[in-house]
């Protein structure tokens, strides 16, 4: 545990970050902005995993290892999303959500 800070404060912080990410996910109309919002959401969930491990079960390491796996999956997801955005930009010359209404070409 971190001295002087309770677990509820940290969970409050991660919840606020999570809902800011959801707000961006809903209101943004640009694919790269949506990717940024998804990164925010993933980071908030990773904070939850790590801090619950630290405060409630300090003797085991499951939360830390899950955090490592989430970071690896997030890296793979970002690489694939950027590749898809490039391919889409080559075809439609735009990365706006409303231009990407067709998957066939």
């Amino acid at each position, binding site marked *: 545990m971190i001295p002087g800070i309770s677990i509820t404060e940290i969970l409050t912080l991660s919840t606020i970050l999570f809902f800011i990410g959801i707000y961006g996910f809903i209101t943004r109309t640009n694919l790269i902005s949506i990717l940024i919002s998804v990164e925010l959401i993933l980071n908030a969930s990773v904070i939850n995993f790590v801090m619950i491990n630290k405060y409630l079960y300090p003797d085991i390491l499951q939360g830390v290892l899950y955090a490592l796996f989430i970071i690896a999956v997030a890296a793979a997801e970002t690489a694939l999303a950027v590749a898809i955005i490039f391919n889409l930009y*080559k075809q439609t010359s735009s990365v706006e959500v409303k231009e990407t209404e067709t998957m066939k070409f």
Partner: protein
Amino acid sequence: MEKIIFYALALIMVGSAIASVSSRKMLRSVIYLLFVLIGVAGLYFMADYNFLAAIQLTVYAGGIIVLIIFSVLLVHHIDMELEVVKKSKRVLAALTCLAGLAVFLTTIYSHPFAAAQTAVTTTTADIGMKLLSYGEGGFILPFEVISVLLLAAMIGAIAIAKGGKVGDGGRVVKEHIEHTTPAKADKAEKITVYPLEKEPAVAEPETALLEETTN
């Protein structure tokens, strides 16, 4: 002392996150995301998970942010501003998020957390042993699966970004070959306009020089 650092970090993270989802300049939004990620790494340092904080800094702040900046610079004009959605839609989304936030916070604050009072320092060797152990609660199988996933993601990203035969890149190459075939002479002319224009510009000083020498 820890309280002050934590609240400073929390303030920076929440402010940067709000700026990141509401900024109209694309590149600034990415840099605000970088601040949030560094703040998360600071939280891990405070919780004494040094290895995880290092991973967060290298993979997120070093890798993913650079990847997103590359995609922004390749796809966007640097001074282009993002379009914003209608104000009513933004207000509705904010209200929905606030409602969800209220539900989550009431759940969190009504739950009695039995926080352990011990502080255990985990070393990198512990994480490595746990990650590669095949005994009870070992993580060797997810570790191998994640390596296969990363390989598949790498190959897939290359294959998708390259375009391939079916993509628009392939079509462009085909059209280019059609243009330059001598069977369609009028289209071939259009393409060769550029080198023809350039040649006289290069040749001009030579002719001028020739004229001078003849004079």
